C-alpha cells in the first residue's frame, strides 16, 4: 500500500516551544493516502488535526516546527525541503482550503487578479488563457454568471460563495492532493450540503486525493473512504470509514459517536465522555485518554503504540481496545 501511496506520513512530530513548555501539537502521526482517495481526519479542538494539515503544507509558524518524522509526497520528503521547492509544490501539486475563506482571499484584490496570479505563479501561460481557466473554474464550483463575478471583490460575495471561490482557487492547477480544513463548519447547513457535493464531484473528476479535516463525524460518514481519529496530538484509531463508524475499537471513538445526538433516543441523557481534553502542556504520561477512559488500567500509564487489529486496515492505539461487534 505504501508503494502506491501519494502521501505517506511517518512518525510526524510538530512541536511548539513556548515559554510555558513544549506543546506536542502533532505527536508521532503516521498515515498514508493514495491517489483519488478521500481520507477523513477527525478530532476535537486541540487534537492536532489542523496542525497536521499545516505541517504537510509547510505552514507551521514559530514557535512551532517539525522536529521529526517524514512526509513523503510522490517520493520526496517534504520535511527539510527548501522554501523555494516547497513554494513550487504549494498551490500547485498540494492545495489547501481553510475554514475561513478570507484566509485564502485577499480583500483588496479582485477575484480575477487573484486567480490569474495563482495560475501564473506556477505555469507560463498567457493571461487570456489564465482568465479562461479561471472562468471555467468558477463555473465548475457553481458560481452563476462567472464573467461578472470575476471582476468582483471578495466582500461582495456571501460566505458560501467565498468558500466556493477559495475551492476554485485551490483546484485551479489541478493539484494531486487537496487538504480541506473544516471548510464547511462556518456555513449554513443547506450551503454545507452543496459544498460537500461539489467537492466530492470535483475531486472525483480531477482524480485528486482529498484530506478532509473536521470534527463532524457525519460529514466523514458520507464522504471519506478512510478515517483517522485524533486525540491530544495522536492518532488513536485508523481504518475504513465503514469499519470505524460501525465498530469503533478505541474508547474515545466510541465516546465521540455516543456524544452525537441523533444516535441515541431523543430526550435521553447522552452517553458523555467525562472530564475535558487535558491541556497539551500537562499531558498525563502514557495514554493521553487515560484520565477520561472507563477502561483505563495500570498498564495505560505507558505509551500505547498503534497496533493493527486483525487482517483488515484497522489499527488502534490502545492496550484494551473495544471488542469487535
Amino acid at each position, binding site marked *: 500500500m505504501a508503494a502506491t501511496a501519494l502521501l505517506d506520513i511517518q512518525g510526524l512530530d510538530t512541536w511548539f516551544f513556548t515559554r510555558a513548555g513544549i506543546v506536542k501539537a502533532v505527536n508521532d502521526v503516521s498515515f498514508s493516502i493514495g491517489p483519488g482517495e478521500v481520507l477523513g481526519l477527525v478530532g*476535537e*479542538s486541540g487534537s492536532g488535526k489542523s496542525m497536521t494539515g499545516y505541517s504537510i503544507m509547510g505552514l507551521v509558524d514559530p514557535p512551532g516546527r517539525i522536529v521529526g518524522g517524514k512526509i513523503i509526497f510522490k517520493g520526496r520528503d517534504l520535511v527539510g525541503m527548501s522554501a523555494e521547492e516547497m513554494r513550487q509544490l504549494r498551490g500547485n501539486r498540494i492545495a489547501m482550503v481553510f475554514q475561513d475563506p478570507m484566509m485564502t482571499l485577499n480583500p483588496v484584490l479582485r477575484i480575477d487578479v487573484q486567480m490569474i496570479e495563482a495560475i501564473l505563479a506556477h505555469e507560463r501561460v498567457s493571461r487570456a488563457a489564465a482568465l479562461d481557466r479561471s472562468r471555467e473554474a468558477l463555473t465548475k464550483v457553481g458560481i452563476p454568471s462567472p464573467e461578472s463575478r470575476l471582476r468582483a471583490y471578495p466582500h461582495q460575495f*456571501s*460566505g*458560501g*460563495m467565498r468558500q466556493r471561490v477559495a475551492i476554485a482557487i485551490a483546484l485551479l492547477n489541478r493539484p494531486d492532493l487537496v487538504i480541506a480544513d473544516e471548510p464547511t463548519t462556518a456555513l*449554513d*447547513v*443547506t*450551503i*454545507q*450540503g*452543496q459544498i*460537500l*457535493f461539489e467537492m*466530492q464531484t470535483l475531486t472525483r473528476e480531477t482524480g485528486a486525493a482529498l484530506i478532509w479535516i473536521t*470534527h*463532524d*463525524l*457525519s*460529514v466523514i*460518514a*458520507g*464522504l471519506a473512504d478512510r478515517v483517522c481519529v485524533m486525540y491530544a496530538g495522536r492518532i488513536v484509531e485508523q481504518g475504513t*470509514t*465503514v469499519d470505524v*463508524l*460501525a465498530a469503533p475499537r478505541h474508547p474515545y471513538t466510541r*465516546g*465521540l*459517536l*455516543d*456524544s*452525537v*445526538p*441523533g*444516535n*441515541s433516543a*431523543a*430526550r435521553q*441523557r*447522552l*452517553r*458523555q*465522555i*467525562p472530564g*475535558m*481534553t487535558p491541556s497539551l502542556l500537562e499531558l498525563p504520561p502514557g495514554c493521553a485518554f487515560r484520565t477520561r477512559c472507563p477502561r483505563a488500567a495500570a498498564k495505560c500509564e505507558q505509551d500505547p503504540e498503534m497496533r493493527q487489529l486483525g487482517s483488515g486496515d484497522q489499527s488502534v492505539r490502545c492496550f484494551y481496545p473495544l471488542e469487535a461487534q
Partner: protein
Amino acid sequence: MTAQAEADVAAVKPPLLELRSVSKRFVRSLDVVSRMANLLGSHVREEVIHAVDRVNMTVRDREVVGLVGESGCGKSTLGRLAIGLLAPSEGERYWRGASLAGLAPATARKQQLKMQMIFQDPYASLNPRMRVIDIVGEGPVVHGLIGPTQQTEYVALQLNRVGLDPTLMRRFPHQFSGGQRARIGIARALAVKPEFMVCDESVAALDVSIQAQVLNLFMDLQAALGLTYLFISHDLRVVRHISDRLVIMYLGREVESGPTAEVFATPNHPYTQALLAEVGKLEPKKRSFVPVKGEIPSPLSPPSGCHFHPRCPYAMVKCRQTAPPLVKIGPGRWSACYLNDVAFG
C-alpha cells in the same frame, strides 16, 4: 382530578410566554451625506431589514421549544425579543396571560429576572475583568436575593449545580476552558432563579464531547428545577434530541411548527424537507449529496411573496405573489405553504 380534567385545566391555563404577531425591523437611516444626495436627485433609500416578520409563538410551562433556521432567519432576534433585550417594532408579549408592556420599573426588573439567556460565545459572554464569584453573584446581591455576606456560599451552590468546582470561584474567565465557561454562564443565569431560559446557540461553539455534557446538564436542570426552554440552534440533531416542539424559521417568518417527532417524521414545508435532508447521519454510506439549490437571500432584499420560492422545487405562480399564511395542518401542527391548500382542498 381525572387525567382528562387535568389536561383540560392545563390547556386553559395561560402559556408561560406568548408572543403575538411580533415584528422587528432594523432601519439604517440616511446620514447627512445621503440626505444631501437625495436632495440633489439621487434615490438613496433607507435600508430596512425585516429581521422578524409577524411571528406568533407560544411557550408552555416546562416545555422545550426548539427554534431552528439558518443565517438571516431571525431566530436570534426572536430569542432576544422573547427575553426583552430588544423591543419589538410591533406586537405584544404576554407572561402567564398578562401583558409585559408598560410595566413599572420595579416590576419590570423582577420580571426580567424570570427570563434569562444563555449565550453562544463562551469567550465573549463573560466579563473578562470580573472573577467568577462576582459574575455569578452580582445579580443576586444587587437585586436583594441574597445578602452580601452570603455571596460565597450561594455562588458555591450554583457552581456545584452546573458541575464546576467551587474552589475555582476566585479565578477569572480566561483561566477556564470553553466548556467550563459555558457552565459559568448557566450558573449566572440560574443564580437569579429564572423560570424561562433562552439558549441561543449555547452549544454551537463547543466540542462534540463537551456539547454532550452541556446538553445533559440542560436536561438535568430542567428535570430538577422545572425550567422552560427556548432552544435556538442551527443544528437539527441537537434540537431533535432536546426539544418537545419545533419552530422553523426562514428569513424572518415562521414556516412550520409542531411536535418534534412528528415534524421529523413527516416534514410538511419544502424548506423543512430540505433542512432535514441535510441532517448528517452516521451511516457510512457514500451519499451523493442532493442539495437544495440556490443561496440564502439577503435579508435586505428578500424575495417577494413566499421567501422560499426561488429555491423551492414546487414553486407556483401564487408563491411569488403573496406570502402564504400559517395554517393548521394537524393537532399542534402549522405550516405556511400553498401546497397544503392543494392537499387539504
